[in-house]
């Protein structure tokens, strides 16, 4: 019995190493000078680490603007999805109302919606209302992607906060709004921050909508995607690494909420 548990552990470790391989490969690639990147055959350990490739990447015309565009769009997405999602989550957690299940189903269904359907008709519409090629336009579509998650997470957050606490503060003469601000909000804050981070990552990572809805205000993903065909290998790999790092850091920060993100409760 004990031996078999050890074996499971080694199997899991091997699988984990295998799983980290691509992350290692792209990190080493982005941190190697171009010559090492194109060397044949390749060495397993990086011969020399340098910022050269990454520095080259950020200095290419348009890259830095794209990074800033991505950050702005992601920040807007973050704000919208929490502003819309948290109240809805609170409502799902605290009230029983007709159509509640329908609303839940609607949210879950949106996750299975092809992104192409979402963004293609918006191109024409956005052009006519002046939202095409703007940060706001892309952020709206990204909010549509992130909102279902933020509703589900915040609903499970508020459910985790005992209703009795709130009720106690009412009996002590606290108004509904003040009791929410003083009791519920501070308790929910870390979780809400995680929700916002997740919305940020959803937006930061998204390729299709950002690509069809922008032309000059390219986000980093859209910029990279558009230049895949004509850009040199070290540029692409540095770009891939650059995209990956913030996501990894953020996801690490919110790993506790991994399960409620998908509308499932983790014990």
């Amino acid at each position, binding site marked *: 019995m004990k031996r078999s548990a050890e074996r499971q552990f080694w199997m899991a470790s091997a699988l984990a190493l295998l799983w980290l391989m691509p992350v290692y490969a792209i990190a080493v690639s982005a941190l190697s000078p171009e010559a090492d990147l194109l060397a044949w055959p390749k060495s397993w350990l990086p011969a020399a680490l340098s910022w050269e490739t990454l520095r080259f990447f950020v200095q290419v015309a348009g890259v830095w603007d794209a990074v800033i565009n991505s950050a702005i769009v992601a920040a807007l997405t973050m704000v919208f999805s929490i502003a819309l999602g948290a109240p809805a989550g609170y409502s799902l957690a605290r*009230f029983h109302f007709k159509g509640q299940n329908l609303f839940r189903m609607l949210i879950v269904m949106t996750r299975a919606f092809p992104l192409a359907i979402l963004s293609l*008709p918006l191109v024409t519409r956005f052009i006519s209302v002046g939202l095409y090629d703007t940060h706001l336009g892309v952020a709206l579509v990204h909010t549509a992607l992130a909102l279902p998650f933020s509703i589900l997470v915040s609903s499970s957050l508020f459910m985790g906060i005992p209703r009795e606490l709130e009720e106690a503060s009412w009996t002590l003469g606290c108004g509904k709004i003040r009791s929410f601000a003083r009791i519920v909000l501070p308790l929910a804050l870390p979780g809400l921050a995680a929700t916002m981070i997740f919305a940020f990552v959803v937006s930061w990572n998204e390729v299709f909508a950002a690509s069809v809805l922008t032309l000059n205000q390219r986000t980093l993903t859209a910029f990279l995607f558009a230049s895949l065909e004509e850009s040199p290998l070290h540029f692409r790999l540095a770009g891939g690494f650059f*995209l990956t790092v913030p996501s990894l850091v953020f996801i690490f920060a919110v790993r506790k909420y991994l399960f409620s993100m998908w509308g499932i409760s983790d014990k």
Partner: protein
Amino acid sequence: MKVGRSPEWVAYGLIAPSVVFLALLFLWPLTETALMAFREPGRGWTAVHLRKMIGDLNFTVSLKNTLLLVAAVVPVQLALALGMASLLDRIPRGRSVFLYIWTVSLGISDLAAGLAWLSILGDRGYFNTILHMAGIVDQPVNWLSYRHPLALFLCIFIAEVWRATAIVLVIVVAGWQLIPREYGEAAEVLGASPWQKFRRVTLPLLKPTVQSALILRTVLAFEVFAVVYALAGRDFPVLVGEAYNWQGAYQNTHVASAYALFILTISIAATFVYLKALRVRRETLS
């Protein structure tokens, strides 16, 4: 039970903004896409765009590629996720570390994931170096080209399995935890082997979970796009890629919309197949 004396309208008021927003950004574009695919300004209803899509050279190829990829990727991901979940269930320590590492790709953009695998599978990548060390190739070979269709398919397959197994794993692990431990212990007492325990106890109880994981993953797999482009460029056409080309390169939103609608249709069809094939009886839901 109602909370305090809060009337129902407060609840509706709180969800109203997101309902309006989701309706605006989901239902309305859906209608618009359908209209776009079947109408032509000044000519009313027409099947021209649909015929143009089906008649397009890349349509059959991209449909075939997408379906093959889905058919290959999804079962492997489910098997892998089940295997990982059962490992997590039994390992003595480090559970959360493994869970984080195995779900690491959840936070990575599909474009970045494709590029990460490019650094391994590209002609100057680590994979060719392994082949070189094994004496199989002596010059770097570009496997990511239409000249090696099988190798190209396998490369994309591997990248997709790596990228998107995480979501299946998260769903499966969550479902696994809801199964009462007593069931497994009872099976052990009765002398069941670990495999029998998994096959006869865990798996049947996991059926609803497996069903939702399969539906979500399959639907998302039909949207495979950036990974393919990062690895294969235009050498491996897929459906969403064609929608993108018609929108961007050929400037024809009508045909692009027809593609989008087509993807939605096969997604819905797949969902129904799963719902029918894996019918979940009420009593198995705890």
